[in-house]
Every structure is written in C-alpha cells, then in structure tokens.
C-alpha cells in the first residue's frame, strides 16, 4: 500500500476520482454511460498515439514526427482509396504500413547517424509534412466512400437513454482496445518489450547483455509509425474528411498525456496503465469543462496546471527522499 505512493500513476488516478466526483456534483450527466461512450470515441485518436509515444519514451527516445506521419499515411491512403476503391481493412492496413515505413526511416536515421531522436524527428516532421503539402497543394479530401462512413457510425452496443434518444458504444474505441491489449502483451510478456525497458534504463548494459539495439530501435519507431497510421484513419473516421493540417501541432498534447501518466523523458520508466490514466485525465478535463459550461479557452490552462501539479507532486516527493538519503550516498 505504502509502495503505491511512489508511483505517479497513483496520483493521477486520485486526481481523476476527485475530478469526476466534482464534475458529477455540478452536472450529473457526466457520470452516465452515454457520456462515457462518447468520451471513449473522441479520445481514441489521442489514446492510440499515446501508446506509441509510451514505447518511444520507455526506450529512452522521443518522437515529435508522428502527427505528420499520421497525416501523410491517411492522406495517401484515402487518396488511393478514393481513386481505386477498397474496404475498411485495406484502409487500415495501408495507412498502418505507410506509417510504419516512415517510422522505420526515423529509426534508421537515429541509429546509423547517431543523431538524437528529438532532432531527427523534428527534422523528419518537417520533411514528411512539407512533402505532403507540396504534393497535395493543401487540398482537403471530401466525399469519403459510403462504406467508410457506415463503418465509422457503427455501434457495437446500442442503447436508448431516458429521453428516448438512441446512443451506443462506437466500433472506433475497439481499435484502441485492440492496440492496448497488443501493447500490454508486448511490453510485459516478450523479450522485445523487456529489451525496450532495458535499453531505456541503461543502453550500454543492454548492448552488453546481448540485446540487438538496431532491432529494438526499428521496432519502437516502426510501431509508433504504425499506430500513427491507424490513428490517422481514426481521425478521418470521426471527421469524415481528410484535412492536411488538422493533426500536426498536437504532438505535445499526446506527449503531455503520456508524461502525465508517469512515463519519464529520460527513458526506462512508464506503464501502460499510467498512459491510459494520463489520457483519461486529459479527456475528463476537456469533457468536464464543457459539461460545466466553462469556456474552452480555459482548457489549455487546466491541462497545463494539471501536469505541473501531478508531475510536481511525485517529483517533489522524490526530491525529499533524495535529500533524506543523500548522506547515505555520500558515504
């Protein structure tokens, strides 16, 4: 029990509970199944990307380029699909494949040139996004195929609320759930996943222990790209158009959610649970402000303050702890 307070995840969970209670007191609509389903659907995009970012952060790197990767992947996919047709499976597969390829390029550059990941991915964000702008001319794609729209509107659970309005759980969050399960298995039960933790914890030792650092890097950034490709499709499902500029610029929101969930920017530390909690907190703040009829301009202020408070509390605890044990270290 005492151990729980060491983890930032605990604080985030606590904030979520308190916040949920507070919002429910002000607007009982918050704690309804309808609102929950709605939240899940809206935050699938952020949720999927956050898992990719989690992998990258655990490995000790960072990726800034994933929004551009998502845009390029889904734009190309829908462009081809609009011309040649396809189905939901081809769309998801193609977008994921393009995303993964771009991720592999990032990994190769980081590994072979030994450029810090932050610099590589900032540069590649510009390259990917720039190329897209050049070739698309910034034109948005409309008129998504009928089958694509129908899929996006599918509910796997259909219910009716007390006012007689139908609602349900969309198929879209199921994609997110699938990603969560897959990521959980990789991180906990495969040598690949443990290797990512090892790499982030101590790169030199990981190499000495016999991990293939190139493989690990390729996987981490490739997986990030793959998830970006899928997240791009999710965004288009929700908006039913492909915009060239709707995703780029949201990188820091995603990274913030993951860091909020306890992942460390210095690598080696982070959990799937924490990331889910981080995304949940970001979602609840956004949704809660709407339900409480507070101007959406306040949204960024609240997100920022929440990060400072929750990261700050656990960091401060660690600082106190270090101070207490400092003399021991000196000895």
């Amino acid at each position: 029990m005492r151990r729980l307070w060491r983890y930032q995840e605990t604080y985030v969970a606590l904030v979520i509970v308190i916040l949920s209670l507070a919002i429910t007191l002000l607007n009982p609509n918050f704690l309804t199944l309808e609102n929950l389903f709605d939240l899940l659907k809206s935050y699938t995009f952020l949720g999927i990307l956050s898992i990719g970012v989690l992998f990258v952060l655990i490995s000790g790197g960072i990726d800034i380029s994933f929004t551009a990767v998502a845009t390029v992947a889904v734009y190309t996919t829908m462009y081809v699909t609009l011309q040649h047709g396809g189905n939901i499976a081809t769309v998801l597969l193609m977008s994921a494949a393009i995303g993964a390829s771009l991720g592999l390029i990032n990994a190769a550059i980081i590994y072979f040139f030994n450029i810090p990941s932050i610099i590589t991915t900032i540069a590649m964000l510009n390259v990917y996004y720039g190329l897209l702008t050049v070739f698309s001319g910034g034109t948005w794609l409309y008129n998504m195929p009928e089958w694509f729209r129908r899929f996006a509107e599918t509910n796997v659970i259909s219910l009716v609320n007390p006012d007689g309005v139908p609602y349900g759980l969309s198929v879209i969050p199921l994609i997110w759930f699938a990603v969560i399960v897959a990521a959980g298995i990789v991180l906990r039960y495969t040598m690949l996943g443990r290797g990512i933790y090892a790499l982030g914890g101590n790169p030199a030792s990981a190499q000495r222990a016999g991990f293939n650092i190139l493989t690990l890097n390729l996987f981490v950034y490739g997986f990030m790209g793959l998830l970006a490709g899928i997240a791009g499709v999710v965004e288009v499902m929700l908006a039913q158009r492909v915009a060239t500029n709707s995703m780029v610029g949201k990188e820091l929101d995603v990274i913030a959610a993951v860091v909020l969930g306890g992942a460390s920017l210095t690598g080696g530390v982070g959990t799937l649970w924490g990331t889910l909690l981080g995304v949940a907190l970001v979602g609840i703040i956004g949704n809660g402000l709407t339900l409480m009829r507070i101007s959406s301009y306040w949204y960024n202020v609240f997100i920022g303050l929440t990060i400072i408070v929750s990261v700050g509390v656990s960091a401060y605890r660690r600082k106190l702890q270090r101070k207490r044990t400092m003399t021991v270290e000196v000895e």
Partner: protein
Amino acid sequence: MAQPFLSMKNISKRYIGVQALDRVDFEVAHGEIHCLVGENGSGKSTLIKIISGAVQPDPGGTIEIDGERFHDYHSIDAIRKGIEVIYQDLSLFPNLSVAENIALGEILASGDRFVNWAAVYEIARRSMARIGVRLPLDELVGEISIADQQLVAICRALTRDVRLVIMDEPTASLTRKEVEALFNVVRDLQSKGIAILFVSHKLNEVLQIAERVTVLRDGRNIGCFPAQTLDDRKLAELMTGKQLEYSRPVPVKLPEQPLLEVRHLSLRGNFRDITFQLRAGEILGITGLLGSGRTELALALFGVNPAQSGEIRVDGRPVHIKSVQDAVRLGIGYVPENRLTQGLVSQQPVSRNIVLTILERLVNRLRLIDHRTVRSTVKHWIEQLSIKVPSPEAPVQTLSGGNQQRVVLAKWIATQPRILILDGPTIGIDVAAKSAIHEIIRDLARRGLGIIMISDEIPEVYHNCNRVLVMHKGCVIAEFDTARASEDDIQQCINQLG
C-alpha cells in the same frame, strides 16, 4: 601443481603508441581467490578484457582454459568456458526489478521470445540460493543499496555454470561492513569450486581475501606471490617500484587562538554534542564506521545540512552557517568524497573545472570573464599541484583518479579557503598518487590552512593528522594525539565498536 583453470603465456597487447601488456604470463588455479593489482595504466584492465574475450591479444601468446588451447579467443569462448566478468559499473538496469536483472541475460541467451515470469523468479531464486543471500526480488535495482546491487550482479553471473568470476574493483563504493559481507560471499563461491579473480587497489583488502596476488607494473608481470608473504608496504613497493616511506608530520607550534571552534553542535538523527577545535596549520582527522555521522558533520559545517543547535566560532567570533554561501564566505571549502558526482563536471575541461568556484574574481572591468587571467590561473594551479594533463582543455573524465582528485583540490584551494574539509581525499586512488596527494595536503597545512580530513583508513589519518577524532553513532567517542598514540591504539578503538 595441478593443471590451472586458466593459463596465459606470453600475452602482449600494443595499442597505438602504448604497450599495454608486455609478454605477460598469468595463471588462475581451479577454485582459488586470486588478486590482480597494479596502478592505473599498469595493464590490469587490458588483461581482464583479454580474459573476457572482449579484446584479442597480439599474435604470439597462448591462452589455455581448462586444458583446452585457444588460437582465436573471443567473448563467446569465455562464456562457454564459464568465465563471467562483473564490471565496476555493474551493468545493471536501475529501472528493472532485482529478479529481472538477475534472469534477463539467461533468458536472452536461451533465445526465448516470450517472458515466463515464473521462470524469471525461479532463475533468480536459484541463483540467490547458490550464495545464500536474500534480496527483495520485486524491488527496483535503482532503489537498493550499492552493496545489494553488487550482489545482484554476482547472482546474475551465477545463473550459468560459472567457473571463474572476475570482479573489477568490487569494493570501490562499499563500506567496510559491506566489504566483509562481500568477502563472505566470495569465500562461499570458492567453497563451491568457483575461482575468483579480484581486481583492486585497496591493498589491505587484497591481502585479507587473496590466496595469491599477481602484480602488474607498466604492462609487465612483476610476479605472483602467496598473500602470506606480503604486507601493505611490500605490495605498494612492488606496484610502484619505489621505496615508500610514510613520513610523520613535523610537529610545529600551532597558534593559541583556534581557527575553528565547534561547541555542542547537534543535528537530530545525524550527530550530537560535537565539540572540537581546529587551529591554523593543523590537520584534524575524523574517522569512524559508516553512519558514525562524520560526513553529516562535514555537511553541516559546509552549510549543506545546517546543524540545529550548538555554536560555531571562526577566529573566536560566533558565526551562523545556514547555507553553502555562508560557509564559503567564512572561507570554508569542502571536497566531497564522491568527486565524480559532486565535485567535478566531468565532461568539461580541466581548466573550466578549476576556475568554476572563482569565476567571480576573474572578470575584467566590463564584468566579462577575462580569458587571459583564466589561462594564467589555470596554469598556476596545474603546476602547483602537478596535475598531469595533455592539455588544460582535456575533459576531466579522461584523467586518472589521482589527477581528478588534484583537480578537485585545485578547484577548492583556488578559492583560498582558510578551512578545508576533505572527505575521503584518496578514495579510489592508487598508492603513488595517494602519497602525492598527502604531500599536497600537508603543504597546505604548512601554509596555515586548518584542515579536517575524514577517512576510513586509519594509516591515512594517523600518518597525516596532528589529532584524530573517532566518531560513533553521531558522537565523538575518543580523541588521539598522533604524537603520543600509536596506529594500533586507534585501530583497537575502532575494532571495539564492531
């Protein structure tokens, strides 16, 4: 004698411009505890790297392990023959649990793609059982003590069928009690027929644990000696090739007025009722076991963790030391034990490290740093302390331990302190460099500084200090005048503490 486990003959290794090893013969018998000693640059680490297969020797030498002769010897051969190296940095993953750290390499080597957590714990438990230690398997390695981390590294080495464990400076960051515990583990390994090759430059420890000692100097094997035939001094002479004399400080007349006076100083949970005086030109030693409060006392005097009650006087005037700035203003300097993390910016050049504490004084009229003054100041200190550097712009981390310690000293002496607190001034430094550092410290005292020297090593405080305080459980329990007491008196006092 029976056939040795490891036998190397005529091993040479030449790096560009440096003959790291010169026709070295080396042997480790089955199940023996063998120590390898030598100063920095004597070729110890090259020899280890060759044994572990990480580096290949120049043609002409032979390596024979367990009766099998190798022409081309690589890491994979070493692993197959059951040779494990525990490097000084331990190569652990601080963010992973103890169990995983122990078992990860074994699972990786088995080629499994999936992790069976039951097997992880099983491997870890089996390994711990072999040396009879208990470690908290679920705790993160980054959160356990260095001594326990060392045990994790040993357990990890034992997951395979190991025949020879090489430990590189295993005691560098352990307290005396922890060293004892480690030695018990080492003897236990030996009783299971595992040979241990111990690399160290703490001579008293070497002599305590080893059966045989091989001495390297300048890449040559000086000889292999049974440990009973050696003592500290003999070993030091073999390592350096010089006659070493521990000279005693010359008694000088000290001024009546104490430079620093501490009365009834207390800090709850750290130390209590500390009273002592320090005169200008005097070296005061403080020794004691781990947790005796000596470092805590130093940190209080330097304002890091200020004392709660009691009185401090400098030049007879009562002063308040509530922060490091207060201490520095009063002319107190502190050289921490852990120079790499606390005393130096190791990636930065020597020059910048030296002037770090005195930049204030090196500015010109425009309040900009005057680089000409900086250069001459740096040159002055490099000469004064005879720091061996290829250039003042070489990063500190490229220097040997002894030279790094000189840079730390230079940095603090440059502030022209009147009181200098040295915590473990020669930890991790080899014998010859040690006596040079001692000479510098005595010279500082002759120039009128008051020096407090904190050290584990009784000979070090005895031979350098005018007086020695022994601390235990936060209190000063004994004071010795080194002109009258003997080294044994102090040692006995410490031994009684247990």
